């Protein structure tokens, strides 16, 4: 535990290099958790830009169907002849938008960034358990991104079977053009993505279990680390199942097996497949697919808990209940996947079971929401941009979460399944919320990552306009969903029945365009502040956790001297008997001071 800076350099020299890190080892093949976090963040941001652009394009198509648009002509080229978007490409955009946002932005971009940045910092470790595996996981992620992006440039277009890639549509190239090479590349990219996710998760788990500094018991861990830790466990349990589904699908596609296919007659010929079942694929997919939404939302919850406590200058309310609800959500998340399949043709009895387990999740979720609200009650709330996004997170999490009791109820799901109601539900509860969590995290830990501050006024504008557009987009969407408008329709003009929803769709798209445009302000703020932001101080938010005891300028090994010891939990804000309204974790208890029993 008494490793000094000198020792660390000696360790570096062990590789036979010179004292100075080269450009390549520092910025490209870095094994330092801080650099890898930044790599994940910037890659995730770029993927996010692509994902959001796609959503804006298909939103324009829905609002003004089949009208020529110079934007389409410029961006889609031959897929938008005369500026009119092709129906196959519409489906491709929807598919890749979903894939990018769920996996590349909200899993890798969010978890990858903040787990890497905060786990070693907040538990008091010099780095991850294995720097090399950490580097490997980023670079596998990078290759996976390149392949996914590469699939956009295929002659026949990228995968277009929806992000859930249900076979037979995804398995048969004759069913749609995107199911040829587009789907092959999708599957390869996804297999690599899963590999990087597993490597990352194992690293996080090992680091949290083994490398906590002296005094950092599990009950003193910040909720961020709890969230990352449990997220990693869910990932290790569920991602391999998606890998198996992807491998079996590759076998069906390329080697003539029949795991998911049976009795198919398409384009005038009978295919040889016999005995498989697409429902099996749905089970395998959602066995990951549902935990995946918690893989996305739990880290955001962790970040929000931390930011809310810090900026309210109050301890997080109900620490034990917060940890317990994280664990409960994690456990329940693995036994609810069937609620995506109420009308898939599986046994209705299973529908009953999954309705029961699904609605149970509302309990730990309610506990968390009320604990956050109580955390800000009688606080001294510092309205930093991070705090605004944290409050926004709770707001959208409640709005989106509540409709979960409708889509999670099998009897009600019959009529809203696969309609815009579902889109509104999951975008609010795990899309917008998780993005808010990510933004909150970025605004809060930006000084730690880049040593500079982001501009707060741009941050305020970013938040308020984003918040208004998010509700503007997704609130009206519930109504058209309950009116029976199915998702993934290239245009609604084929049904006169839906003509009275035209104006709703235009309102949604206009809000989406505003919401998309305002992200430019954020991007400007993010990239310009890296170079021109105000220099950050060591602990700008006056926070208690260990990362704020490290120097502003990143050094290998995080602390120049000894690793700090921990004497208290991470939420001693406004504790009576102290002059300051925060007591860092590395400050020993005063004589006669009691540590809170938690």
């Amino acid at each position: 535990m008494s490793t000094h800076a000198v020792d660390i350099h000696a360790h570096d020299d062990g590789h036979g290099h010179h004292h100075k890190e080269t450009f390549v080892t520092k910025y490209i093949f870095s094994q330092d958790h801080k650099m890898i976090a930044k790599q994940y963040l910037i890659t995730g941001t770029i993927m996010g830009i692509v994902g959001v652009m796609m959503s804006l394009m298909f939103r324009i198509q829905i609002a003004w169907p089949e009208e020529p648009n110079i934007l389409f002509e410029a961006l889609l080229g031959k897929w938008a002849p005369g500026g009119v978007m092709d129906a196959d490409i519409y489906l491709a955009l929807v598919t890749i938008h979903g894939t990018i946002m769920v996996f590349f932005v909200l899993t890798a971009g969010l978890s990858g960034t903040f787990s890497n940045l905060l786990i070693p910092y907040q538990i008091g470790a010099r780095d991850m358990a294995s720097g090399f595996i950490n580097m490997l996981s980023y670079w596998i992620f990078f290759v996976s991104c390149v392949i996914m992006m590469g699939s956009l440039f295929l002659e026949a277009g990228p995968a277009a079977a929806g992000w859930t890639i249900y076979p037979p549509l995804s398995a048969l190239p004759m069913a749609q053009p995107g199911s040829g090479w587009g789907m092959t590349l999708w599957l390869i990219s996804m297999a690599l993505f899963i590999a990087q996710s597993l490597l990352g998760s194992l690293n996080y788990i090992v680091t949290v279990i083994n490398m906590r500094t002296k005094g950092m018991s599990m009950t003193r861990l910040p909720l961020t680390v709890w969230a990352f830790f449990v997220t990693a466990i869910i990932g290790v349990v569920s991602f391999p199942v998606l890998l198996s589904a992807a491998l079996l699908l590759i076998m069906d596609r390329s080697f003539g097996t029949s795991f998911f296919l049976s009795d198919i007659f398409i384009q005038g010929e009978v295919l040889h497949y016999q005995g498989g079942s697409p429902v099996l694929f749905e089970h395998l997919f959602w066995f990951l697919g549902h935990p995946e939404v918690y893989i996305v939302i739990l880290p955001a919850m962790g970040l929000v808990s931390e930011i809310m406590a810090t900026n309210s200058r109050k301890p997080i309310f109900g620490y034990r209940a917060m940890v317990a609800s994280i664990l409960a959500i994690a456990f329940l998340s693995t036994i609810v996947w069937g609620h995506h399949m109420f009308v898939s043709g599986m046994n209705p009895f299973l529908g009953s079971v999954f309705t029961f387990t699904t609605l149970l999740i509302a309990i730990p979720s309610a506990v968390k929401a009320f604990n956050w609200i109580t955390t800000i009650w009688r606080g001294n709330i510092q309205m930093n941009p991070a705090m605004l996004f944290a409050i926004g997170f709770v707001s959208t999490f409640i709005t989106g979460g509540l409709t979960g009791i409708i889509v999670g109820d099998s009897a009600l799901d019959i009529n809203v399944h696969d309609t815009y109601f579902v889109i509104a539900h999951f975008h609010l509860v795990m899309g917008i919320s998780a993005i808010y969590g990510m933004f909150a995290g970025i605004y809060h830990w930006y000084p730690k990552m880049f040593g500079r501050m982001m501009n707060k006024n741009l941050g305020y504008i970013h938040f308020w306009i984003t918040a208004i557009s998010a509700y503007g987009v997704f609130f009206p969407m519930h109504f058209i969903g309950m009116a029976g408008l199915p998702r993934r329709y290239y245009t609604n003009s084929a049904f006169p029945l839906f003509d009275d929803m035209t104006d709703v769709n235009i309102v949604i798209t206009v809000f989406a365009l505003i919401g998309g445009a305002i992200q430019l302000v954020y991007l400007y703020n993010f990239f310009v502040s890296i170079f021109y932001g105000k220099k950050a101080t060591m602990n700008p938010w006056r926070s208690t956790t260990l990362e704020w005891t490290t120097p502003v300028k990143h050094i290998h090994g995080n602390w120049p001297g000894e690793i700090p010891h921990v004497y208290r939990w991470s939420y001693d804000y406004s504790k009576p008997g102290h002059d300051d309204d925060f007591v860092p974790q590395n400050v020993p208890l005063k004589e006669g001071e009691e540590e809170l029993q938690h």
Partner: protein
Amino acid sequence: MTALFIIIIVLFAAVAIWQMVKIFDLAQIKTDTSNNGIATDYDNKVNGYLMLAFLAFIYIITIISFVYWGHLPLMSNAASEHGAEVDNLMMISMIVIFTVQIITQFLLHYFAYKYRGEKGKKALYFADHNTLEAVWTIIPVIVLAGLIIYGLFTWNSIMNIDEDADPMVVELYAQQFGWTARYAGQDNVLGLANVRLIDIDKANVLGIDEADPNAADDIIVKELHLPVGKPVLFEIRSQDVLHSAYMPHFRAQMNCVPGMITKFAFTPTLTTKEMRETPEMIAKVENINNIRAEKSKELLAKGEEELDPYEFHYLLLCNKICGKSHYNMQMNIIVETQEEYDAWIAEQKTFKESLN
């Protein structure tokens, strides 16, 4: 035109943002000259008030949505027996949701406003309270227990197919990108079928086993007719990819899975004619026709054909992504009296007659 519209919106947005940055910056000069990225008392105050404003925004958008689009949701006028139960459960869930939404959003945003930071103020050191935790664990448990029990009863009554009621058996057959229906005929038993038996030359498009005696009287049609008040059991097949048979007015949906037969049963309660005469539907159709008339004017001005006026039909739509024309995979459903149905079905050719 659209592109221009979008460009104008983006431009306006950009100008608005620039203006707002200016306002924030100017306001800053008064209170704090160093924008070091950390909220000042002034920021806390402004954003605290904005929190209240945002609370108002959430309520207003809720009210506006209800005023303008409240007629859209399918929560009344169900055209099937179980549909009324689904609507009832939906209504109860909605009441729970809106109550919780209004209260929690109020607490969240009001606290954010009320307890906005000020220099020298100290927050309350309040880390835990078992009674409070118990309260907001137990209340959701009770509410959810009620919803789960009601939901499960409803689900079971929908999904348990009552064979004693002697339902009329109809096959729904999905393919890229259309629907076909097959009636079981006099014997009410569908002939065996498999896509391997499809013989286009003989017009056996559903792959029906010609050797099966039950198949001879089956009737294949492109428009679904259902007698009102009679339970109907759908046996659903797909020949190529997943589809989903979605009949929103009947609160009915079931996926079509290649390689297996899925089932869904319901009893229609309102004929198409009766549905057209309900006040809700009259208003809806009138509204749609006004919108279409306006669109027609635009089309005529461009020298294109005008739109036909809309007349209500029950619909079967595809609700599982199935390829290029997924958005236009539909079949009309006509619910009519038993006599009308009998007259219609008598005119249809049986499978045996239709074979080449």
